[in-house]
């Protein structure tokens, strides 16, 4: 337990020392928020069911952070640890390999939540962000979405032969998904064909779930999203346990 705490604290410090990761988790979504907020403001718009641009952006950008930490942060860190022999070194100590993963998940989860918190604070202070949902429900949806995406990240890290390929493949999956799923741009602005494609993207379900609960939808309206994300989580955990390699 003591080593898990130490390790989590250590990974937290390492997270902030890696400027690129911290930027994409904490700063980049805020920049997006201010960019589109300054263009469109947050006045209610009929096409958005009476919500403002910022109102729908905060849950959508939260989905963006989840995807970025899961597919980039976690994948690159784990693949690099394996490739450089960091895992190999840990393997010679009595600590369980699980501790490394648990520490990694805790840190990235906290950082993702921190990223979301920054968006909410900025939205509230600058654009009078509206929130009609239930905080507990949103947090539960946020947690499910995050750990599902972390599971995808572990699978990628396990399957990719090197850290470099993990990074490239992670990026190749992440970027189109950010724009097609409605995380980067409001889905209402996307053409019909792209919306059809987006049904095959895991991130679409995160965006739909978070945006829905944000405006107070009941869970019953989102069983599809919950089932898809839970399935991703289960499959992801099983596959990453099977594909795990120390070196």
């Amino acid at each position, binding site marked *: 337990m*003591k*080593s898990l705490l*130490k*390790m989590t604290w*250590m990974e937290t*410090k*390492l997270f902030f*020392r*890696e400027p690129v990761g911290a930027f994409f988790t904490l700063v980049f979504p805020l920049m997006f928020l201010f960019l589109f907020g300054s263009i469109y403001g947050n006045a209610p718009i009929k096409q958005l069911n009476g919500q403002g641009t910022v109102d729908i952006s905060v849950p959508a950008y939260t989905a963006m952070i989840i995807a970025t930490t899961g597919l980039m942060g976690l994948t690159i860190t784990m693949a690099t*640890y394996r490739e*450089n*022999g*960091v895992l*190999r*070194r840990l*393997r*010679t*100590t*009595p*600590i369980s390999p699980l501790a490394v993963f648990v520490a990694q998940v805790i840190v990235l989860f906290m950082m993702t939540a921190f990223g979301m918190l920054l968006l909410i604070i900025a939205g509230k202070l600058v654009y009078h962000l509206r929130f009609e949902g239930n905080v507990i429900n949103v947090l539960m949806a946020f947690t499910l979405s995050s750990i599902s995406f972390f599971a995808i990240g572990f699978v990628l890290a396990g399957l990719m032969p090197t850290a470099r390929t993990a990074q490239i493949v992670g990026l190749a999956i992440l970027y189109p998904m950010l724009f097609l799923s409605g995380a980067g741009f409001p889905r209402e602005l996307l053409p019909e064909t792209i919306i059809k494609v987006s049904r095959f993207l895991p991130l679409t379900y995160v965006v739909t779930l978070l945006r829905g609960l944000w405006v107070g939808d009941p869970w019953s309206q989102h069983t599809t999203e919950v089932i898809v994300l839970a399935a991703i989580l289960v499959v992801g955990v099983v596959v990453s346990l099977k594909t795990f390699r120390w070196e």
Partner: protein
Amino acid sequence: MNAVIKVEGLKKSYGATVAVDEISFEVFEGEIFGMVGPNGAGKTTTIECLEGLRKPDHGKVTVMGIDPLREGHFLRTHTGMQLQQSNLPERMKVWEALDLYSSFYPKPSNWEELLTQLGLEEKRNTPFSKLSGGQKQRLFIALALLPDPQLIFLDELTTGLDPQARHAIWDLVRDVRSRGKTILLTTHYMEEAERLCDRVAILDHGRIVALDSPEALIRSLGAEELLIFNIDSALPPAFENAISKLGRMEKQGDRVVIHGKGNNATLVNEVVSLLARQGIQFRDLRTEQPTMEDVFLNLTGRAMKD
């Protein structure tokens, strides 16, 4: 003497390649035991079987009285291991690594003391990636010492280090041994085996081709010691007569080479006093002894390559 490690008929193959072919040896308490041989000789596979990181195909391995595979947790808690090609996260600082790793052990050594002992005090706030090769290895030795182990595994400790850093590491390893710890190391530097180890197992193609102290291995060659010096004048016949009792003499222009017989420990002494008595001026006197390189060459018929 107490055997800390016992290996009997250890065999390990990867597919069709036999990495370790039925080797047996023991490592005794308090010694520096070296496994030396070219890359691919089976050193790392052997050490990883002892560390419980690999499963032997055949044979029996006992480390500190236990089976490393079955009681891996005990082994990892009570031994220090330094692995080839392992690293720490690039931005982790020296003190953070020691602090973190010491939390893994029930009774860790004081890492602040280790920091000083290993000469890393000035580097305590340096990130891992900014350390030199020698400093990284010193940090790894410190990490291996954290559990306050009786037994330490060091795999290719000085590979890639410059000679100066290598000598500094040797001093550290000797210092660790003098604190009563047992050390098993692998190296592909014959010089390292000769200078550092109490006993050496020479591995080639997965087999132990020789196992003894470096001195005994060299002596077993029965090779002659060479004594070489230059002269400016001709040698008097009396000298040549006297020398013939000590060994064979060869003249190459100004250069004189004397092939000493067997293990004549007093060869240098006798030749120099003979030169002095007969008033012969000489310069650039040096000796050449056989080394572990010659032992390896003799055993395998080829020279060690890096």
